[in-house]
């Protein structure tokens, strides 16, 4: 038997190491396909079966997936930028300039990070508008809408905290104005302002706090809520497609077996 790529992978899948990692086993049966999704720590967030209609461009415009895509781009480019950026007052501005003029591909990575950030905010809003005007926020998906609102806030906070890091005039005054808004909270406004900045003015402490928020606390928060968000899609009956909702006329007239596609 000639060794084609296909037979090579078939052999690989039968090895002991492979079987110890992927325990669903080989085969094309419905059970195997379902187990492949169910027994994978990442894929088990998703449903084992979806309707074909749910995966068409027209039903979601893929806006949520695209938002996740920009988030992943931001994580990768952000980690790379962290290798050349020191969150300290004497160095921050010159590090950003070095990224632009000295570091190989630094300009590309920083611009990719910046444009992806803008795109993520835009896509998150577009995704929410889409969900809103489609009515996909309604029961049983109300809680996932709330999770989505939290994710939008985390996205905006990530955008805002990242704004200070270049430590230029725009950053300095934007954060001065923004944190002063928090002072308007009744009674505890000044305390919040003090805690946010780690002082009374935008200075070394504020830069470090915003850096930690931007690079650690907010991304971790986003990942936790993203996991809940994706898992809830499965729990709430899959992606919203009006025709496939129970009770609608078109859903009742179509035989459901033709609507299923294995994942």
């Amino acid at each position, binding site marked *: 038997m000639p060794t084609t790529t296909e037979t090579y992978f078939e052999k690989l899948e039968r090895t002991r190491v492979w079987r110890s990692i992927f325990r669903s086993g080989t085969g094309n049966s419905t059970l195997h396909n379902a187990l492949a999704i169910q027994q994978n720590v990442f894929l088990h967030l998703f449903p084992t079966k979806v309707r074909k209609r749910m995966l068409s461009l027209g039903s979601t415009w893929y806006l949520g997936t695209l938002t996740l895509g920009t988030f992943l781009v931001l994580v990768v480019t952000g980690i790379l930028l962290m290798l050349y950026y020191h969150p300290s007052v004497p160095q921050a501005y010159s590090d950003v300039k070095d990224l632009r003029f000295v570091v190989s591909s630094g300009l590309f990575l920083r611009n990719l990070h910046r444009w992806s950030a803008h795109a993520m905010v835009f896509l998150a809003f577009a995704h929410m508008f889409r969900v809103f005007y489609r009515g996909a926020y309604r029961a049983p998906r109300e809680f996932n809408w709330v999770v989505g609102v939290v994710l939008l806030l985390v996205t905006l906070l990530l955008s805002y905290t990242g704004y200070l890091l270049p430590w230029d005039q725009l950053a300095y*005054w934007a954060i*001065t*104005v923004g944190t*002063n*808004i928090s002072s308007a909270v009744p009674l505890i406004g000044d305390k919040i302002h*003090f*805690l946010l900045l*780690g*002082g*009374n*003015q935008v*200075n*070394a*402490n504020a830069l470090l706090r915003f850096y930690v928020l931007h690079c650690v606390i907010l991304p971790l928060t986003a990942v936790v809520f993203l996991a809940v968000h994706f898992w809830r899609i499965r729990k709430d009956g899959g992606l919203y497609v009006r025709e496939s909702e129970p009770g609608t006329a078109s859903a009742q007239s179509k035989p459901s077996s033709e609507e299923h596609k294995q994942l």
Partner: protein
Amino acid sequence: MTTTTQAPLTQEGSALDRREFFTKLGLGSLGVAAVGTLAFYYQFLSPNVLFEPSPIVNSGKPENYPLGSVTLDVNSAIYLIHIAEGYFSLSAICTHLGCMTAWKPEENMIACPCHGSRFSEEGQKMAGPAPKPLPWLKTWISDDGDLMVDRSVTIPQLQFLRV
């Protein structure tokens, strides 16, 4: 009959009460620990030592500020103003959202570049979103004859310093 049926009932009741008591004790301790943790975080996140410039600024000799002049010190964000009534000092931080204002001699106004607030030479708000006038700062003459300003102490308006 009545006593025999009542005895196990009260025992059962007291057993439940004991369980309830320990549940409440446990939840209560967790609550206390949670409040303590919050207090711990609050204290940890509030710095005890700040490496910020001193609020007291030495602005030099009064003679450096001729009559009718409005001088902005961008490093300390204060105005030193000398008019016929005397010297005084204004905070240059806009009372709206904290941007640094600038003196516009051609308009005879202090203007904020961020959201368009305008103040008179004496700090009164003339236009824009600022909710309060620019605060007057405590000003005095040091033993060496220098003009001193304490940015952390505001004084009532129209208290001029005469030299």
